[in-house]
């Protein structure tokens, strides 16, 4: 029913362009009916308030996090910034950034068995309520599904990934309530035995960084254009019905690094190769990446998961 809906991910937290499902004409977010054919357009989702208590806008929050209208402080949650330093060669870090009032990114990762590395990055769509819950539910569901598949040893990695994305989609869909459809991107990867398999929806990315040259983007953004943050595929109750999950298999050519990240990083760093190569410890490198994004403005939530391959 809302197949024509285009999600606007970053930078614009409130504007959601709506494409008329009948005639495919794009309408400004505040129109309730298509001006071409008169079809009713779904009301755009409301951006979450920036003061959790009174809904004051971000410019009313003082540098210490107190709302200058109602006085309440944004409750700092563990969700805002957390890391998983699995080993010196496998680490992830996510951060709220500087401008958003909460972190709507989430990631899950671990080493499974002796030789498999599993990692999932999700970026909740800011224009929906509960975007933070959406990304968390998606990343957790996809991760559990992947671990189960890998441990049972029955599925090929591609089918394991497809099953994981479908579990993630079910988890996000379950969060929908009347009028609200939380949504999230997803990029999931499994590295094992000389290959990396990746599946994704939306514009969270996977990169391969070799010993030299630019980074190789393994994913292709599901967005309207390379410069646009309007994604065309996502997880959620209102996801396009006919969307197909993209997958890619990459043969590891030699030593290098696999990086999964949300657009909060790649917006500032489209080619992370040099920065990734400056370090030898995955924990240090992910910190460097997140610090760089915050140092560049931190306009969005930032997530980076890195696997160093010897």
């Amino acid at each position, binding site marked *: 029913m809302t197949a024509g809906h285009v999600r606007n991910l970053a930078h614009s937290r409130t504007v959601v362009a709506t494409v008329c499902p009948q005639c495919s004409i794009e309408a400004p977010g505040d129109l309730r009916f298509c001006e071409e054919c008169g079809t009713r357009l779904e009301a755009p989702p409301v951006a979450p308030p920036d003061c959790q*208590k*009174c809904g004051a806008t971000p410019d009313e929050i003082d540098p210490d996090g*107190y*709302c*200058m*209208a*109602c*006085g*309440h*402080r944004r*409750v700092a949650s563990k969700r805002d910034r957390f890391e998983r330093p699995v080993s010196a060669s496998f680490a992830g870090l996510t951060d709220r950034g500087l401008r958003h009032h909460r972190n709507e990114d989430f990631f899950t990762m671990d080493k499974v068995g002796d030789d498999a590395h599993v990692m999932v990055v999700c970026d909740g769509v800011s224009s929906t309520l509960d975007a933070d819950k959406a990304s968390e539910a998606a990343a957790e569901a996809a991760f559990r599904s992947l671990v189960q598949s890998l441990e049972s040893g029955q599925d090929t990695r591609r089918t394991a990934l497809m099953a994981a994305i479908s579990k993630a989609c079910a988890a996000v869909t379950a969060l929908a309530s009347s009028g609200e459809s939380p949504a999230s991107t997803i990029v999931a990867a499994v590295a094992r035995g000389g290959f990396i398999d990746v599946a994704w929806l939306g514009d969270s990315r996977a990169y391969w960084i070799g010993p030299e040259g630019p980074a190789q983007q393994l994913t292709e953004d599901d967005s309207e254009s390379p410069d646009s943050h309007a994604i065309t595929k996502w997880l959620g109750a209102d996801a396009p019905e006919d969307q197909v999950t993209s997958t890619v298999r990459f043969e590891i050519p030699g030593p290098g690094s696999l990086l999964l990240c949300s657009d909060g990083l790649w917006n500032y760093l489209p080619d992370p190769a040099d920065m990734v190569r400056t370090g030898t410890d995955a924990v240090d490198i992910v910190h460097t990446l997140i610090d760089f994004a915050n140092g560049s403005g931190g306009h969005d939530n930032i997530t980076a998961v890195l696997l160093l391959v010897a």
Partner: protein
Amino acid sequence: MTQFKAEVFQNAYIPQGADEVNAIMTVTVDGGATLGSSGEKLIGIVCDTSGSMEGGKIHAAKDAIVRLVWMLPQDTTFFVIAGGEIGELIVPSVRATNDNKQRAIAAIKKMKAIGGTCISTWLARALDQFAGAPGAIRQCILLTDGENEKQDEPLLEGLLDACEGQFQCECRGVGSDWKVEELRKISGRLLGSTDIITRPDLIEADFKEILARALSKEVSDVALRLWTPLGARVRFCKQVSPDIVDLTSRARQPKAQVFDYPTGAWGKAESRDYHFCIEVKPGEVGDEMLAGRASLVVTTAGVENKVAEARILAVWTDDESKSTKIDRRVAHYTGQAELAQSIQEGLEARGRGDDDVATALLGKAVRLAHESGNEATTKLLRKVVDVDNEEQGTVRLKRQVTKEDAMALETRSTKTSRIQRA
């Protein structure tokens, strides 16, 4: 620029459903700092010359004022008003040069005690003089011995409105024929104190002290600014040290959610305490709220400068071990306010002959003064009551109490002690 330091003391933890936040803020001027005022100081001397001053009082007052004029540093400016039925400007604002001092002294010596007491006309003359020195430290000293004429009351009320914020005024009553309430109304509005000078020969020492304090002031027109969240209400804002001054009704509101309370001029190394009591909308357990943001604002040549800031917080908790604690300073000053109130109500009861109530209230005052280590107040109380047991507050009213001792207790009941170091 002036170095002000503001520090808040409170227990931010309050129980579920609580809507009141209490905090004590200590404001201190850094002793080593050079302050940013123009350095100009204008001292106004207003002396009652009504008929009742005739005799020892007018002589002592004239002597004291002459000595005071001699003590003025050369870089200050001063004026003198002789107050009777109409205020007469006998020395208009002049620099305190030797020549000017001599001319002023000649005029002061000619003052005669005659006629009635119309304080509004004295203040009107003073206001004219202070209006000509907006950037200066503006300090007035008012000496009287009697009650204001009844017909002057409404005029005085209007004059106080006009004078508020224009200058500060210390009021002194000599002898015991004046009304504490009356002078306190003037000094309260004009950010000064009221005190009794029991004998004319003590005028000089008192004036000396007032002058020293006035000359130590380095920055004038300082406001205490309090921001509160939407839906909050300031239950009270009081200066609680060195004495209690309720500023609650004195607030101006420059914009929504912001109140400015006048604090007057500040001197080097000066320190005062303030008690804020703010009513807020109760949050949920775990919520943290900025219940107030208190700062000091110095206005120089129309430009506001925020010079210190401190936060008042509220954190709702279901942990009783946290929320039942009362901050030591909040408890101390709550006690000092209760002490002042017990004295005032106790003296009132004593005045109307209600000995039982007076004994109970003054006994409670003795206990509170003892508990808080307020020795100055204890000493004054002992002139009015015989103390049987200080800790329990068991007292007997003295049979023979001079009017001066009762008035001294009344005027100084608002003087507080600072918290004793733990």
